[in-house]
């Protein structure tokens, strides 16, 4: 079997359990909340419209935004809890709506008969309206179940394990096998869950007259088995596992997957057990480390300087690095272990032969010829502060400024359609296309030095600190670029890139 596929399938049990637990807990809570709400709404007309409007509005908020809002509301907490809260909010609409519709579309002559023979309102609800509405309610639950399985993949973004781990990691590291395994697994789970709930529906509809038939008994057995198996698996995955000594976090791009892998490998070598929470948003990751849900990750000084400290000046690499380290220690109780050595920032780059032909080393060298050159940037570069600062500091401009998607941009410079591009210093494609980065000697571009951060609690462990401190200033721009290239350009696995970095750190 294909090595990559084998590696992915090894992850399946963990991701499957995580996904199943998320889905079943969210769906169970969703049902437990939505059906009573639906019933309540049909009893009090004043409540009905506001309720239906509210659940519809929740539905229109993009799911990623709901996740982010829930994390913020829970004070930056990541993991199972925010994922479940968001999923519950999301699965309410079809259940509430179908409960209301089901209860309201019961034939009036049946309701009149129920009242007329002397049933109390409560008996009418439990003996007539709910049983008759059940098929419609279950149809709503089926819709909710399929949605929940799909949306649970997004839980990865807030640090809850799901099939989304396959999808997000795969998308970022160009691992199509991982994306496929994750998508197929989610689809299979959705179909299975839908069939089980469909089975329940069939059983409730056929309960009275077929209770004795062979087919009915088999179906009941199958559905019962499905339910018991699903819930016990979900429960099993929630059993307190021997919790890892440390949790490593990472953002959703290749470099971060590699660095998280490196930190984890180094700690494991030192004898610690480690969990990884990958693909987290920058703010989520920062908060999670501040509150101790994550123990270590790699941040960039410029990100803290501009996003957190809201500074707009550029006092240079050293000042930013030190200010960022002080800020996160004083404000959020984190510890900066030190810089890793490389920077991840925008840089101008040219084909090596072209740079030599024009004799260009620094941006100052570009100035005499700049107005004859064609420059290319990614979709946002020419709108960013980096470009404005570059333009104003050097008083530089180009003959043409084109924007491309990154892939096309590298192809364009390779084919000499443009003279220079704005790329990232650590982008593997700079190495792959043998481009020369042009030095920003006047420090116009805000520095983004990689910094190794740890949570306050983890920092109290001397062995943890000494293990990670050994990485400080050990990874050069070139080394990081090469590691990224292995994954992004050569299609190698993240663990190969980690091994490569380890070979650089300890030659």
């Amino acid at each position, binding site marked *: 079997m294909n090595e990559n596929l084998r590696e992915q399938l090894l992850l399946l049990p963990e991701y499957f359990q995580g996904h199943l637990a998320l889905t079943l807990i969210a769906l169970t809570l969703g049902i437990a909340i939505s059906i009573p709400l639906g019933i309540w709404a049909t009893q009090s007309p004043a409540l009905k419209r506001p309720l239906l409007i509210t659940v519809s509005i929740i539905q229109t908020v993009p799911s990623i935004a709901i996740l982010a809002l829930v994390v913020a509301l829970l004070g930056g907490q990541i993991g199972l809890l925010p994922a479940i809260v968001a999923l519950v909010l999301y699965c309410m609409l079809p259940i509430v709506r179908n409960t209301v519709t089901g209860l309201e579309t019961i034939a009036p002559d*049946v309701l009149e*008969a*129920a009242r*007329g*023979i*002397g049933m*109390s309102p409560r008996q009418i609800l439990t003996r*007539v309206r709910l049983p008759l509405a059940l098929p419609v309610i279950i149809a709503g639950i089926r819709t909710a179940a399929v949605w929940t399985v799909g949306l649970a993949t997004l839980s990865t973004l807030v640090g809850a394990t799901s099939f989304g781990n396959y999808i997000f990691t795969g998308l970022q590291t160009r691992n199509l096998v991982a994306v496929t395994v994750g998508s197929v697994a989610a689809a299979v789970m959705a179909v299975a869950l839908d069939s089980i709930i469909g089975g329940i529906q069939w059983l409730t509809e056929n309960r*009275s*007259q077929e209770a004795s038939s062979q087919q009915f008994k088999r179906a009941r057995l199958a559905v019962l088995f499905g339910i018991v198996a699903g819930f016990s698996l979900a429960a099993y995955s929630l059993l307190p596992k021997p919790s890892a000594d440390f949790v490593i976090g990472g953002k959703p791009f290749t470099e971060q997957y590699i660095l998280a892998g490196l930190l984890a490998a180094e700690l494991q070598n030192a004898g610690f057990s480690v969990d990884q929470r990958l693909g987290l948003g920058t703010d989520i990751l920062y908060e999670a480390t501040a509150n101790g849900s994550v123990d270590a990750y790699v941040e960039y000084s410029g990100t803290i300087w501009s996003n957190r400290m809201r500074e707009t000046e550029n006092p240079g690499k050293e000042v930013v690095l030190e200010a960022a380290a002080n800020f996160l220690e004083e404000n959020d109780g984190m510890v900066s272990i030190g810089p890793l050595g490389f920077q991840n920032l925008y840089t101008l780059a040219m084909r090596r032969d072209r740079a030599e032909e024009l004799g260009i080393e620094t941006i100052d060298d570009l100035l005499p010829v700049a107005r004859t050159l064609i420059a290319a940037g990614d979709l946002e570069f020419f709108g960013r502060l980096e470009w404005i600062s570059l333009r104003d500091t050097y008083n530089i401009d180009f003959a043409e400024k084109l924007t491309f998607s990154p892939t096309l941009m590298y192809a364009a410079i390779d084919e000499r359609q443009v003279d220079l591009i704005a790329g990232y210093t650590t982008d593997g494609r700079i190495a792959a296309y043998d481009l020369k980065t042009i030095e920003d000697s006047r420090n116009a571009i805000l520095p983004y030095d990689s910094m190794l951060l740890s949570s306050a609690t983890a920092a109290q462990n001397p062995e943890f600190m000494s293990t990670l401190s050994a990485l400080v200033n050990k990874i050069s721009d070139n080394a990081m670029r090469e590691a990224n290239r292995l994954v992004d350009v050569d299609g190698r696995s993240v663990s190969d890139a980690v091994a490569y970095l380890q070979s650089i750190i300890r030659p």
Partner: protein
Amino acid sequence: MIELQNVQKSFDGGMSYAVAEISFKVERGELLGLIGESGSGKTTTLKMINRLEEPNQGQILVNGRNVQDRNPEQLRRNIGYIFQGIGLFPHYSVAQNVAAVPTLLGWDPDRILSRCRDTLELVGLDYADYAERRPDQLSGGQQQRIGVARALAAEPEIMLMDEPFGALDPITRAELQEEFKRIQKNLDLTVIMVTHDMTEALLMADRIAVMKDGEVLQIGTPSELLNNPTHEYVKKLVEMPRRRAEHLERLMHSS
């Protein structure tokens, strides 16, 4: 015994009256036929008796007690009601439908079961054949008979029947009419039966009340109505069965 005293009902705050100040009394063991054109207020009158509707004015007494003083659910469980729309519970089997009121009254299961058998036999349906069926597996006429059985199941003293035999073929209908009349006499039931069929009313009722536009035009025994109709409308109503009867008479003697 059922007594209505100056009962009025308006659904539109007094602009029009579905039932406009009617009074009548049905003695214990009596069967009152309630007849009138569509929209004349027959169903509304029945519903006020078991408090499915509340009158705007007037009093209704059942067995001498004002229905306003009674718990509506208790009241309804003690009155058999056959609904114009039948209204069987589609998710219940025939047996569960028939057992509905005894179950509400908390009878013990054995008694419910034997009563179910008896009532189904009473309306001419074989228990073994029908008990486990669902209403949607029955013909319209069979559903109507289950409706009758459900109303009879809890052995009520009072029955309100809204077009109970409408969906039946003529022979079954005649059989069931006679059967019911027999049951009613045996059990001494007090009954109000709404019908559109004057022949049915003439043959089954002890007295007949004719309604029009929410008012009772005339109330009297079948022969009183036949021989002394006080309104043009009542005269027209009894004309048709009388002419048919005379016609049949002639046919029988001519052979």
